[in-house]
């Protein structure tokens, strides 16, 4: 019984981190209307950034947020501005241009292979790591401290993005563009600049996710792929474009993964995850929670 509760708690914690990795995917989709296949690679870039920041400065992993978040924002902003934007301009009249998806796939390959070339295939773990293996004991329950921090980060990041979108001038411009690009133009909003900002925010949230992962996860060039696939499943479960849905979808996946093995083998839990994914696609394509955009 105690294991059951522990697994549930750990599932929620890990799941919220999955949700955090998917948050950027859902934001970028909500505004640009395309799935960013490079999202896992952006997460990977963020993990290397956090890894090297810790390795070179010896800072507490979470302190690297002050570095990783702005760097990732700028990286995403200019990636969209320089690489993706020209395709959008060329396909001005297409609402959901497929060629953009192809370009993001190209970005994924380039980033993963460039990383392989520069840093090699080794698995890396940070050496200076005050969070390593730390456990919190509450009434006989053992809870992973780095995952607890990840959970807090996910909640704070999701809330911050939500408030930003609701309360600020740029946030409103992003929502307006996501709802009607031409009408937003007529209000004086430059949609391409909004795309840059949305991509920057999406990439910055991947950076936050990366920082939360680095204390207990290996860093290697294809680490993003794993989270990519989970990310797609999560945003479909939660509803493409939904912030709350991304977090909840992540928690569902985390729970299936951690509680499932109590009752069946791990391969079965994976089958359940994919089965749920297909079921939602067939039965409720707007996502389990039915809200397409909650912002």
């Amino acid at each position, binding site marked *: 019984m105690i294991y059951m509760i522990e697994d549930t708690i750990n599932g929620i914690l890990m799941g919220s981190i999955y949700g955090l990795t998917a948050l950027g995917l859902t934001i970028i989709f909500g505004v640009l209307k395309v799935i960013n296949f490079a999202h896992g690679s952006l997460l990977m870039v963020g993990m290397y950034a956090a890894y090297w920041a810790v390795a070179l400065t010896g800072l507490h992993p979470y302190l690297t947020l002050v570095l990783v978040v702005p760097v990732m924002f700028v990286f995403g902003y200019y990636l969209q501005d320089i690489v993706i934007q020209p395709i959008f301009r060329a396909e001005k009249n297409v609402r959901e241009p497929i060629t953009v998806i192809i370009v993001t796939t190209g970005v994924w390959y380039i980033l993963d292979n460039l990383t392989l070339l520069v840093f090699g295939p080794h698995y890396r773990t940070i050496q200076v790591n005050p969070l390593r293996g730390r456990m919190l004991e509450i009434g006989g329950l053992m809870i992973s401290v780095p995952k607890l921090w990840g959970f807090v980060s996910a909640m704070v990041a999701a809330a911050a993005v939500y408030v930003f979108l609701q309360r600020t001038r740029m946030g409103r*411009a992003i929502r307006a563009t996501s709802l009607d690009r031409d009408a937003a133009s007529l209000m004086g909003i430059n949609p391409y600049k909004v795309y840059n900002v949305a991509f920057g925010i999406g990439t910055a949230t991947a950076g936050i996710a990366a920082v939360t992962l680095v204390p207990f996860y290996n860093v290697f060039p294809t680490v993003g792929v794993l989270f990519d696939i989970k990310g797609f499943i999560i945003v479909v479960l939660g509803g493409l474009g939904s912030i709350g849905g991304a977090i909840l979808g992540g928690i569902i996946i985390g729970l299936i993964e951690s509680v499932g093995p109590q009752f069946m083998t791990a391969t079965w839990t994976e089958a359940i995850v994919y089965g749920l994914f297909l079921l939602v696609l067939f039965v409720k394509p707007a996502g389990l929670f039915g809200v397409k955009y909650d912002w």
Partner: protein
Amino acid sequence: MSFLEVKNIDVFYDDVQVIFDLSLTVREGEVVSIIGGNGAGKSTLLRTLSGLMQAASGEILFEGRGIQAAPPEEIVERGIVHVPEGRRLFTLMTVRDNLEVGAYNRRAAPHLHRTLEEVYTLLPRLAERQAQIAMTLSGGEQQMVAIGRGLMAKPKLLLLDEPSLGLAPILIKSIFETVRKIADQGTTVLLVEQDVHHSLSLSDRGYVLEHGRIVMEGPAGELLADPHIKSAYLGI
């Protein structure tokens, strides 16, 4: 120097031409109507003025400067604001958020709160509905939001594309009264309409657009009395 001067523009959708060698002028403070049937090219003309589309040839001068190559956001900043056909509200945002987005441009943003009060005074219904999601409003209220959102951008020249479209007669009357009030407060208005009687009645001048060409122009009173217009547009 004219306020708005359109000189010999041609506009295409891909290779289909819909506007042919069109010229028109609007003077500051005027209300000018463009009337014409379905498919005449009225919306295309407004889309070209606001930069959503580009003219293949010709010139568009606003306050003496060429804007034919400028993107929409720059044209809004210059002071031309387009309230599009079919309202095009940000459907899942509140009335208040729709209005605030209207004031996004740099010229209007610093005056947001003041303009918001002015808009609420002109359209008190919007003040009552400000927390409501735009999609859930009635057609007439949605049109009010569309106009209010346009006003939030602080237009020098307001382009209105068929504001009466799909509304009940009583609401049509109130929409045109609102347009009159906006003009009386000093905003220049270029009004596109199929409701010829109402639009010419409140305009100073008018143009008749048929198959992408201006076929007639003149003071609104003269157009209203013209036999061709009476038979083709007023059904008299």
